[in-house]
């Protein structure tokens, strides 16, 4: 089963995404900030991560840098409130981010974006 890790400091949003993705058939795990995410990642070994761009503690850049030291290399979708230019998108891709979804997102749009990068039941 495809594993998705939800990283968000907002409990309600995190839980909402958790329920939403489980209903869609993914195996999920949550983390409430960068440190939490980094401590759990090698244990859970997610295929994909939804990452909130604005959390207390570690910044997005710091999280991505520390992620390089980890064994697990998941695909990352950013949850953001800003738009990115093509140039910025290229920079994000270089750092391991495959896509981004602008808040507030439509239910279908988020699910479609995730499905672009992972299969529901990937063949290992």
């Amino acid at each position, binding site marked *: 089963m495809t594993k998705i890790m939800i990283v968000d400091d907002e409990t*309600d949003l995190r839980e*909402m995404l958790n329920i939403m993705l489980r209903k869609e058939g993914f195996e999920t795990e949550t983390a409430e900030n960068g440190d939490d995410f980094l401590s759990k990642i090698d244990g859970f070994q997610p295929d994909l991560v939804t990452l909130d761009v604005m959390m207390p503690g570690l910044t997005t850049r710091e999280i991505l840098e520390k992620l390089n030291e980890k064994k697990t290399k998941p695909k990352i979708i950013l949850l953001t409130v800003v738009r990115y*230019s093509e140039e*910025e998108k290229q*920079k994000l891709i270089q750092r391991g981010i495959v896509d981004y979804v602008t808040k*507030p997102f439509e*239910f279908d749009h988020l699910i479609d974006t995730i499905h672009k990068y992972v299969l529901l039941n990937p063949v290992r």
Partner: protein
Amino acid sequence: MKIGIKLVIVSEILVLLTISSIGYVALQIGNQSIRERIEAQLGSVTTLKADHLDDFIKEKIENIISLRNQYTHLLLESQYTTQNGREFLRDRLIENSYFTEFFILNNNGTVQLSTDPMQEGKVKSNEEYFKQGQSDTFLQSFYYDLSLQQPAITIATPVKNENNETIQVFAGRMNISEISEIMSERTGLGETGETYLINNLNFVVTPLKTEENTLFKKAVYTDIIKKGLTEKPTNTQILSGYLNYANTPSIGSYVYLSDLNVLLITEMSDAEASAPLQALGNNILVMSLLIFFVTLVFCIYIPQKILKQINNLTTITESISGGNLGVAVDITSTDEVGQLASSFEKMRKSLQTTNEELLRTQRNLEKKVEKRTAELNEKMKKLQDSEIATLNINEDLQRTVDKLKETQTTIELQNIQLKKLDKIKSDFLNITSHELRTPMSAIKGYVQMIMKQKLGETTEEQKQALNVIIRNTNRLDSLIQDILDISRLESGTMKFIAEPTNIQQMIKEAIETTHSLADTKKIQLSTNIEENLPTIVIDKERIKQVIMNLINNAIKFSPNGSSILVRVKKETDNLLIEVQDHGRGIPKEHQTKIFNTFYQVDSGMDRKFGGAGLGLSIARGIVLSHGGNIWVESSGLPGEGSIFKFTLPLIPVHDLEGKFRDVDIFRLKDTKKIIENDLRNKTVIWKEETADKGEKS
């Protein structure tokens, strides 16, 4: 080496070469012709002498034969006596003085009769002339008569009786002095020329010019005699380059006279023979020397004249190079030297003029330098005086600089604070945006999950309620979006993403999005877009937002079933985009105010359509940021509608963010001033926006 000497040497070499060639050829030709002439002369003398001798001898033989015939006749007469015979001989001897003796020999060889009584009775039987003369006429030439003790020539002929029997021999002895005379005759011969006869025994038989008493005493063995006696030529021959009997180098001609058995030689000394050649050589030499000296004189004289002029010029040149420009060049000849001199004179004059000018300038400069030096000295003095004062000023300056440094530090600190404030402002907006939207996301997520029955069955009533929640959430979201946009525009932190954009495509997308709203009022949306529009660099999403805002407004304020036209055309520097409706129009007094924030023409009307009055304000901000302008045209009469127009420059305006700082989004200043300002600041610099900005918390 000097030119004169060179010229002399070259000319003389040429002259000598020419003369010696001509001389050589002339001598060769002369030598040949002179030799030929000498040879011809010698040959002809020889031939002449030979003929002369021949004639002489023949005549004598005939004389003897004639005398013999007379004698025979006398002898055969009956009254002949010895006395008669003797008288006859004596008489004949007187008549023929060439002969020295006539005598008659009997068959024993004894002299029977003779004109010389001493000879009678002598026996001549051994003499050749007796032996030969018995049978036929015989000439014995140049023999040394032993009985006479002298050279002689004797002609003998037989005396015959009626029976043709030799009874006696008639002989005549001839003096050779006659022949010697013939030979000595030196006609056609020069100083050294001579002719002589040599007999078979190499004895000289005729007198030689330079030696006396040689007859039959001197045997001579010169080359010519040896050759002549060996060859015995009957034709005249020539031999040259031999030594004659006196050891003198000679040239000679020779012929052998077989009648007389002698060799006839005509010779002359080489010296005389080649005398004309010598003279020719001498003449050539004299002429050569003459030409040589004349040439020498010319070669020395002519260059001398030119060299004198050149030397004159050299002297003047040296004088000029020594600094004396006052010496005039005095050469008046019209040749090349004269031309050189005259051009040199021109140069000298121009140099003189230039030099004088230079001297004048130098003097002026010296004066100026003196003046300036004096002024400088004065100033130096003044400066020294004011040095102390300057020191005081320096201290003041130092203090001012210190103060300035302090001020600079303060300003720098303030600048840093301002930058910090800017960042705080930007961060604040980002955080606000995030904080407002995160709860919206949670709400929307749950509502949509419920709507999709992911969390269990929902009733129709519940669905209606959820739709209300969704609509209001969207409106709230839109409002938050607008407020954030306004805030960003106002604070200058609005982020633009510039990209090359196809306007036609973009308008098509905008119309597609607004189509459903238009359909609800049965409004016809149409476009009139110029073909072949250029691609322009803009923030596509933001401009699309502007167009959608204008279309949405038009839909809102148009009556049902009317039409809206979107028109795009290219102007000189801009694209002009128009949205025309047929609504109630906008009164003149509102036409600028409608772009103000929170401005509504009719509060009641706008409320009805759910607008907060922010859309046009944002549109204006976006358009101005792109370097364009936005305005509305309307008569204000209901039904005539209005046309919202905005421009976008064809050449991209960079640093859209920077541009926004100049936009007074709340229109706190006078509107007219703002528009002028906006037009003036169309071109600004693009500033790169990094991805980090949005990520930083």
